[in-house]
């Protein structure tokens, strides 16, 4: 279609608001991204005030407002976890990062990453399994990382979480 066919009618004025921008990840998420991409580690920060795991890691604790600055207590969580919930995208989806339509085909999972001394930490990411009928609450999953040369210091350096088979008897142990 030519542009002329879609000239706005009189009284409807065209405008654009496209802007490219960069967000600083900040000191804590910046460190989290560096360790994720370079070391394939998923880290939480234990609050020095209340002991709660901060995930994502951040300076100020949500609950007790302690400022965690010195002697940071980084704790490994994941890369395995348990599937709690999932959703499957069936609509045209505009990726707000790029303003391009995106169709990964992968459901989004709410995953409880294994964490020491806690019920786990909540993480949201894609699942490898595209057939939602094969998903079950309580399934064990594990992060699959992108090939190193494709990584970009972003959470999508984890491609998705893959369903893993528990060894028999392990879960009870």
């Amino acid at each position, binding site marked *: *279609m030519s*542009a002329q*066919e*879609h000239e*706005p009618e009189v*009284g409807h004025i*065209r*405008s654009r*608001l496209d802007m490219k921008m960069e*967000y600083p*990840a900040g000191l804590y*998420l910046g460190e989290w*991204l560096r360790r994720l991409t370079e070391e394939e580690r998923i880290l939480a920060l234990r609050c020095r005030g209340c002991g709660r795991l901060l*995930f*994502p890691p*951040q300076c100020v604790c*949500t609950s007790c407002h302690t400022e965690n600055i010195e002697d940071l207590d980084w704790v490994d969580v994941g890369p395995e976890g*348990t599937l*709690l*919930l*999932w*959703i*499957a*995208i*069936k*609509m*045209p*989806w*505009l*990726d*707000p*990062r790029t*303003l391009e*339509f995106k169709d990964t085909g992968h*459901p*989004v999972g*709410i995953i*409880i990453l294994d964490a020491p001394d*806690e*019920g*786990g*930490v*909540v*993480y*949201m*990411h*894609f699942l490898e399994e595209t057939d*939602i009928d094969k998903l079950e*609450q*309580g399934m064990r999953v594990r992060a699959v990382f992108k090939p190193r040369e494709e990584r970009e210091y*972003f*959470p*999508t350096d984890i491609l998705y979480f893959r369903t893993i088979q528990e060894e028999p008897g392990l879960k009870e142990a």
Partner: protein
Amino acid sequence: MRRGERSDDMRRNVAIVGIGMTPMKTRWRNLDRNELANMAIREALDDAGLAMTDIDEVTLSDIDYFTGVNNSIMWLADDLGAYMKNGVKYETGGTVGGSSCHAAIHHVAAAASDVVLASATMKIPNPPADSNIPIGAMAQAALSSGFHPVWERFCTIGAAGFFAILASAYVHQSGCTEEAAAACRVKAARNAQLNEKAHLKMPLTTEDVVNSPLLVWPLRLLHMCPTTEGSTAVIFASEEKAREITDKPVWVRDIVTIHSSQFYTTSLLMTGKDPMDSPASLPSLVKACEVLYGRNNINDPVEDLDVIEMYDPSTWAELIWMEDMGLCERGGAWRMVERGETEIEGRIPVNPSGGVVSTNPGTPSTMIRYIEVALQIRGEAGAHQIPGDVRRGVATGFGGTGWTPMVLLSRDLD
């Protein structure tokens, strides 16, 4: 005085004395925002029998990202009547129609102003005809931009994704079927048809709902609110002024706003020690009810309230949030809907207006909830008026912030 007691916030009694609301529809094609705002404001002034010279202060609600205009207090100043007056703009996402009311109420209660007008308008800049981006996708992208750019944005799908997560949790926990959830949407459609200002007024059957397209499994198109344009205005006044202005003041008995945490996944699901075992819930709503019920001797909301207008962007949210509001036990909301207890004639009518799932102009959506409770108390809700005595009711708000603003309105001061 005990901290958190109502009178700490409410040193003077405050009443709603004027209400204005345009019809709500997909598009007010040729009106600009000012013209739309003016329609509701004139109606509110007429309703109160006031002129703009009687208004001390104007509070404006807006969601800039949706309207494509920054500094809207400047854009709208003339039509709001804010010229040379006190005026502040509030920007708190979908809760903002409540936030601007709370600001107005606080200012009157604190004797900073006697009569305050709160205004909320949604006029969406449409994607042009040659754009490949439909309005729904545009709205989802705008909503997704509210999520954290590093942590959550890459795999969130705006409001639809958020409510799909809640729906998914609710399905697992409550045994609610698709058909049972659809019954709640059918109730909303039935009520909206009785509300001349509502947006979606089509009759719906359970089959229509369960056969509507999936947006984000398990959430379907008809479980989700539309994008709507329209405007609302409410005038608040001190007790002394209210008694001069009107013989039908609706008293603001209490307000509360509870904030959520920054990250959606954690704020939604970290309600218990074990996230695998946490109920589907909006924690800020649970807390808001605890505070507001506690301060106002509401022990059983079903018995102690006559109407609830809840900000229900999705049918699934309405069910889950009924439980958060203590209307029934966990997992019991869909059965309560099935029994007809939340119908207009039911034990505790929820959203007799048809709710947000029928009409969602965003900026005014929370204000519409407040207005609808006030209209019910006045007995002026028209065809969707609850039969019998409507003495007091609560309204809630919701938005991209995950906050809960909430108001308790009453016909009488005691």
